């Protein structure tokens, strides 16, 4: 239909047809570019996969009762290893309050966080300061043994 012919048709019909055409076009464009935009947004979210693996930390003989050992985890955190009644205890030295580095105080048999005076029991449960108020504990890592080798279980995002 030429432009001249179109003006001879009933204005309401012509308007509706024209509007429908524009609407269809608009919907098609929005659908296409909207999908592309959705992909772009999805692109920005980096959902890593979780990888579980074991890493050697020490031999049983290195962890005599009463002794503790600090080992660096692959991601740079320090892990404190002690021998508890139920086996080997592997605790993160990152304070759950705001992330400061927690210290083991052998003279007081406790963990102490210098930032806001958080205090933790030897098993990692907070008993003083802001972490205790929030009912937090030092992150505990699973360990396992293979023979007399002690392995740390890590969950990493890759």
């Amino acid at each position, binding site marked *: *239909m*030429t*432009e001249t012919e179109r003006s001879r048709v009933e204005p309401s019909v012509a308007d509706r047809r024209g509007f429908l*055409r*524009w609407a*269809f*076009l608009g919907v*098609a*464009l929005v*659908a*296409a570019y909207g*999908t*592309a935009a959705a*992909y772009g947004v999805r692109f920005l979210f980096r959902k890593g*996969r979780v*990888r579980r*693996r*074991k*890493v*050697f*930390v*020490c*031999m049983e003989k290195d962890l005599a009762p009463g002794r503790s050992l600090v*080992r*660096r985890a*692959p991601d740079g955190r320090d892990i404190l290893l002690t021998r508890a009644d139920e086996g080997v205890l592997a605790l993160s030295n990152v304070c759950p309050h705001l992330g400061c580095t927690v210290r083991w105080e052998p003279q007081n048999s406790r963990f102490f966080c210098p930032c806001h005076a958080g205090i933790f029991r030897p098993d990692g449960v907070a008993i003083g300061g802001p972490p205790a108020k929030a009912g937090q504990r030092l992150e505990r890592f699973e360990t396992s043994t*293979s*023979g*007399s*080798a002690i*392995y740390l279980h890590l969950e990493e995002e*890759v």
Partner: protein
Amino acid sequence: MNLEAKKVVVAVLSLLFLGSLLVVAWVEGGKQRFAPEPPAEFTTESKACYDCHEEKTPGIAAQWVDSTHARLGVGCYECHRADEGDVDGWTHEGRLIATIVSPKDCGACHPEIRDEFEKSHHAKGGEILGSLDNVLGEIVEGPAALNLGCRQCHGAKVEFLRDAAGQILRDKTEGKPLFDTATWPNSGIGRLNPDGSRGACTACHSRHRFTVAMSRRPESCGKCHMGPDHPQAEIYAESKHGIAFATAVDQGLMNLEARPWIVGRDYNAAPTCATCHMSATPTHPMTHDPGERISWTLRPAVSTRMEDWERKRKKMQDVCRNCHTPDWIEAHYAQYDDVVDLYNEKFAKPGAAIIDALAKAGKITPTPFDDEIEWTWYYLWHHEGRRMRMGASMMGPDFTQWHGAFEVAERFYVELIPQALELAHGDETVLAAIEQVMDAPEHAWKKGLSPEVRSRLRDFYQKKYGQEIR
């Protein structure tokens, strides 16, 4: 193009674009994202070793980095560390280490395997002092041959150089104990280590990659289990098992790196030595004691059944069951037993009796290998006799027959008996022993074939080849 046409065109293009985006989503969904392999992990101590040895011994460092040990963070120091009081310990760059990593060291992390291995015959391999083979190697041949020949498979007793007072000699710079080079390097499977343990895990799990794929390959066993006196590697290669393996490995079907590696589940194209003798099956766990599945001992002059042989045979047959039916297995074992019995009854026991009689009559000296007949007898049971039995056990027909029974028969009839007769020098007991042997029905043919057998042979040759024979 007018406006209306433009609208349509653009709308169609938009839909095409949308279509292509759907394909993009489909491709995206189909993408398998593999987590990248974690890098080698280092403890502080091992990092120090690695940083230097990466330059000094790049091959060792690079092999380790590729290994499962590296992925788990088990490095140089974790294996080579020594304790105070270890006789072979020395302080290297500030740390107490030892060169040799023995089963005791490996067993710190792999205790069950170490225990199984300790029980096995492999662990006893180094204790061949006093055996006939030892005399042969050490005295008849020479110590150097023993060290680089016998002991590289059996394992040496690792010794250090010592001074007159018996103290270990050490080098000036770091106090490293000096090995007696007659005994080290050595990775024989029954090595007697300075820390008192027996064995060398590296015999099959070669350092420093320790890749299990190597241990599962027949070539690993074949380093030692080959040759004229126990050609298991050659027999396997000749057998259908070996042919299947050669094809399967080319076609990438063996899955040698898999953990676990269970026959029938993780691979099924062919067995290797490990499959039958050690590795896991759906019904049996892996064992590092191959003796657990062996019912006959084919090693000695006269074969005997192992202690608790029925249970062990059942275990082996359970492995066969993954690919073979019970009838097949039963029949094979019947054939195998028959060959061993044939060897035992027709050649081995008679031969042993004759040698015994000669020794008792003083016709051969107590010194081994100084009489020709001792070599003859040795060849018969230690080489040809073993080939015959082992060929039967692992279905290598040529080894059973031409490298085996045929040569046993030849050795027996053409050499042993005539040599014994000559050595007898008329001694009654010896001659009686020989006659007792030759009177047995299986040796009667020596006296001449019966007329019926002779005429049958004549007819056969006449018909098939048109040949006239006497």
